[in-house]
């Protein structure tokens, strides 16, 4: 978090937190998304959405440098994660906190040790300091009561929340969350949304969130980017409420209004 709040002058010279330029990505020869470009500004919450199989999670994995795109570039704070290699790439990846769909906690460590893991690896802090930081992170995601449990003993929602706490441990520039509220009960999902908004407000984190939970999208997103598996492109971008109410694209309206496909409606026999 920058103190005091930055003036508009400095904001214009800093590059966007994330910049995706003319990206083409997919698996083997199969293209999932082509010619995609968008920026995510610092402190912004952008959701990537679209139906199942449209490449949301794959786009996320390209952004965090796990997959190499077929063409185009991805810049983290102005530096290309696509062209970076070795130490440089590792440094860029450390700017990103990632929460995977399943939480991806390490099975041999308990919850507190999982959250402390990045601090153990990359900082010189004393054990007491690391433990306090990890406990405070767990408080943020309302998981303090579970600090001594092993990942095998946690529910899906708990795994995700602990995963978020671990992703934040190194004070990353961008938090990438893959389906954070999928499969959570409404109260936990709402709490998670509140946590995301509070982190953005108070610590100035930038969020890239992959989700198709409509309620969550309307609550947290500054902007939405919608992918389409048929045209393999970004078909909409903007504020979720505006897209729902004013989009001219029937696919976008259908998504936001949660309408079934017409062709799947069968008549009476």
């Amino acid at each position, binding site marked *: 978090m*920058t103190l005091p709040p930055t003036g508009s002058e400095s904001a214009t010279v800093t590059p966007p937190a994330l910049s995706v330029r003319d990206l083409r990505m997919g698996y083997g020869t199969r293209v999932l998304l082509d010619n995609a470009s968008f920026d995510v500004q610092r402190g912004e919450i952008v959701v990537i959405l679209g139906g199942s199989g449209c490449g949301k999670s794959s786009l996320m994995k390209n952004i965090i440098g796990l997959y190499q795109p077929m063409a185009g570039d991805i810049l983290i704070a102005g530096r290309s994660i696509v062209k970076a290699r070795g130490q440089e790439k590792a440094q860029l990846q450390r700017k990103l906190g990632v929460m995977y769909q399943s939480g991806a906690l390490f099975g041999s460590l308990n919850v507190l040790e999982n959250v402390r893991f990045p601090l153990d690896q990359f900082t010189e802090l004393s054990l007491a*300091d690391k433990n306090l930081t990890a406990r405070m992170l767990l408080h943020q995601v309302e998981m303090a009561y579970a600090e001594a449990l092993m990942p*095998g003993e946690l529910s899906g929602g708990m795994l995700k929340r602990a995963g978020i706490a671990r992703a*934040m441990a190194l004070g990353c520039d961008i938090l990438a969350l893959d389906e954070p509220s999928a499969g959570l009960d409404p109260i936990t999902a709402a709490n998670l949304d509140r946590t995301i908004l509070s982190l953005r*407000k108070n*610590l100035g984190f930038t969020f890239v969130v992959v989700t198709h939970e409509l309620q969550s999208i309307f609550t947290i997103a500054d902007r939405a980017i919608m992918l389409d598996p048929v045209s393999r492109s970004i078909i909409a971008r903007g504020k979720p409420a505006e897209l729902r109410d004013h989009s001219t694209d029937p696919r976008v309206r259908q998504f936001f209004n949660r309408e079934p496909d017409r062709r799947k409606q069968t008549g009476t026999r």
Partner: protein
Amino acid sequence: MTQDAGHTASVILQGRITAHTAAPIWKAALDTLARNPTRPVIVDASRLEYVDDVGIALIFDLIRRDRPQGAQIKIHELAPNLATLVQAYDPKDFVQPIRSRPRIGIFEHLGRATAQQVAYARRMLGFLARCAVGLAQAFRRRGVIRWSEVFDVATEAGANAVPIVVLVGFLMGVIIAFEIGLVAQQFGAVIYVVNGVGVAMLRELGALMTAIVFAGRSGAAFAAQIGTQKVNEEVNAISTFGLDPIDFLVLPRLLASMLVVPLLSVLADIVGVFGGAVVMLTFDISFLQFYQQLLGAITAGDFLLGIFKGAVFGLTIAAVGCERGLGTGAGAISVGLSTTSTVVTSIVLIVVIDGFFAVVTS
């Protein structure tokens, strides 16, 4: 940075405090507090530029301390949004010590291990009984056993294991012939090396070595496959379809293993004996002499014993692998534990069973 000015001590937090820079700042601040136990300390946060969650933890750690009257810590000019964040935490929530993992003494460890082994032996017996019932039913009713699955497993565990079994079997024959040959040569009894190679390969080593290779290759694979299916709740899905995981997952593997381990043993016998024959050439025993001596040295009983042992070993390895797979807990670690345990348990059981056969058939 710290300063001592007259009656009050001060800690100055300035610049960027992040996970990567916080360690010395934190240590210096705590040192200042420790050096001034009775003086008030002022934490000056006016020159802070940037903090992350570690910086928040540092500020919280300084102000949460319980100090005597007149020696309190005051924080100056903390930005309002940071103050909101820090005040969101209640110091009382962080006083409990971190629970370390319980350490157990040697006797408790011994007791637990014994109890585990007893429980495992019971589970294994129960499992084998269920398998026996399943097999009996399978042969009485059609359609219980999925033969396509049996042949798939047999192909993977059997046919694909041929190269390694051939290699190991051949080398076993070579080694035995060479070692016994060198000793026998001193007594002019080289021709009897053939008897040694023949009996050793057919009665013992063919089946034994095949079983050990099979335990490492396929027993471990059974445990890992079924264990992963258990972790992914596929086993639950099978159960809720009204199918028995024993019929569905275990029986095909048991049958396939009972089928292929004897076949692989025969292969190991043949190449092992051939390996011995190749070595005997260097001791001036021709293939023809070797063959004639071999016919006199071994019986059909030796050969059949090897095959029967192979079937028992196959059954044992598959049963251990499947039982461990179905007994897998949650997470990737338990799959690894099941796999390791399968290989170790299988090899121990193979050797024990082999010893049993040696006593019974001698």
